[in-house]
């Protein structure tokens, strides 16, 4: 019983806080409840942002045989505090010919959309901040407005590098939004709901004598969709190897070139929040949300499991950044249209087969469909190396 109490500790705490407002008018309650949810989400993720920014540098340093930040506090853990103070007291420079208002609003808009997307993810049992019927759709609707913010940053700066970076960012975001959305469709088809809570609830329970959890990632279509979703998520959050919009060696820092001080920090905050949101959605859709991997471990509170899975995905993000070089911009786009998109459609087909034929037969059938299309595509797209003078194509 005590395990259950620990599991619900935040929900109970919220109810206790709301009970303090008992005498207040009727309309105060929903507003107070929403504000509490917002404060909780922001507090948790800003802490996580501070932690992950120092951990990322530590892990990258480990990969590159360095020490990483180790001066401020124990193991350099207070580094984000020092960074924050530094960025706050830096001079804020706005270019003379910049569009002042647009230049000012752009970082706020990008950060706001990233924070909004965090609101519909279930963080634990009864712990969805805003549980709406079309939660998944809300996530993507909000995510699709990020492009406008990137454009505003690029255009408002009145700088060629900024504009080129924004164009690249929008081009790759629009291209990869398609596979990202289509890989979500199989899950929605199988669950029959757009609500994040319903999707997590559908992954409850264990099969094979209570050993293997019923997460969608353990089905052939789910595994393929998860990998595609993760790669598209890398692109959507502009992370290596798909960080061409801010490729330092080519276009300075892309749409962030003309930003300094705290506005620059806001862009970073937005990038990391976007990363948290996409990883959180991947956990919700494919990795069973807050469910424990083994039934014996259900004593551990649900939110611990959610954040443990989130941490693993974030580690993979950082690991990939430390391992892979940046892709060339045209290769990124070609990969989206010739490989990601057909594979995403294949996932829908495999999920449809799975829907009508469960059990071992369905498993094998859907594995066969995914496997055959994957092999066929890789055979078709195999580049036959021809050593000829390189030709360049420019946008005209």
């Amino acid at each position: 019983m005590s395990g259950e109490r620990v599991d619900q500790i935040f929900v109970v705490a919220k109810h206790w806080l709301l009970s303090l407002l008992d005498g207040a008018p009727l309309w105060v309650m929903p507003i107070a409840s929403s504000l509490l949810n917002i404060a909780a989400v922001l507090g948790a993720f800003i802490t996580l942002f501070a932690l992950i920014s120092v951990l990322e540098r530590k892990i990258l340093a480990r990969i590159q045989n360095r020490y990483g930040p180790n001066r401020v506090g124990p193991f350099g853990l207070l580094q984000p505090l020092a960074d924050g103070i530094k960025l706050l007291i830096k001079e804020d420079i706005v270019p003379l010919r910049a569009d002042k208002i647009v230049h000012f609003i752009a970082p706020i808009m990008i950060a706001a959309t990233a924070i909004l997307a965090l609101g519909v993810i279930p963080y634990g049992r009864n712990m969805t901040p805003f549980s709406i019927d079309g939660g998944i759709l809300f996530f993507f609707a909000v995510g699709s407005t990020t492009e406008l913010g990137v454009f505003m940053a690029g255009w408002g700066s009145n700088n060629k590098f900024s504009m080129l970076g924004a164009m690249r960012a929008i081009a790759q975001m629009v291209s990869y939004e398609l596979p990202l959305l289509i890989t979500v469709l199989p899950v929605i088809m199988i669950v029959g709901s757009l609500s994040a809570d319903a999707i997590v609830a559908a992954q409850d329970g264990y099969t094979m004598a209570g050993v293997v959890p019923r997460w969608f990632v353990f089905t052939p279509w789910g595994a393929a969709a998860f990998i595609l979703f993760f790669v598209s998520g890398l692109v959507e959050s502009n992370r290596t190897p798909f960080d061409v919009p801010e490729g330092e060696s080519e276009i300075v820092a892309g749409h962030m070139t003309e930003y300094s001080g705290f506005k620059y920090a806001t862009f970073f905050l937005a990038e990391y929040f976007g990363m948290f949101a996409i990883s959180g959605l991947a956990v919700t859709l494919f990795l069973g949300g807050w469910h424990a991997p083994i039934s014996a471990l259900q004593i551990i509170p649900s939110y611990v499991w959610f954040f443990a899975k989130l941490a693993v995905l974030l580690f993979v993000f950082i690991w990939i950044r430390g391992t892979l070089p940046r892709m060339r911009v045209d290769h990124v786009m070609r990969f989206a249209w010739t490989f990601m998109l057909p594979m995403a459609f294949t996932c829908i087909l495999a999920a449809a087969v799975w829907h009508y034929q469960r059990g071992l037969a369905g498993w094998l059938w859907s594995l066969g469909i995914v496997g055959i299309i994957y092999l066929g595509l890789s055979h078709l797209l195999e580049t036959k190396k021809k050593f000829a003078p390189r030709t360049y194509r420019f946008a005209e």
Partner: protein
Amino acid sequence: MSTAAFVVIAIITLAGALAAASLSKLIHAALCLVIAFVGIAAFFFLLGAEFVGLVQVFVYVGAVAVLIVFTILLTRPSDEKVGGFNWSGVVIAIAIFAGLIWAILGTPTLSIAAPHIEPLTVKRIGEALMTDYVWPLQCVGLLLTAALIGGLILVMEEKP
């Protein structure tokens, strides 16, 4: 509560629309139009039509606004001011407004106390689209695919 929300959303939407019509820099006008789009989505939310509101954000803010902004960017110099009074625009606006008023006045009067209806869930919309309206849906899909292929052919490079 909902009356206050209605007034606030209406003011924001109208301000956005007015700014979109009157600002001299085209990009600013396009960005203000986005505010009006978001306001309309908020109206749908207020009415309980969650799905329609989300699609409004998805299609208009995510796609149409980006399209408009890119069209402006790629077709004219960024610092060109658009001034002058556009009489044809006024005529078209008045014609559309009159048409809407005519349509609204032509509808049977709505009873203020609306009958209790089920909330419009995503599931019901999906069922309706897949059963009663499956052929219109297919036709729209075909039309959009044709438009996509047409667009591709227009921008495709001639092989040298």
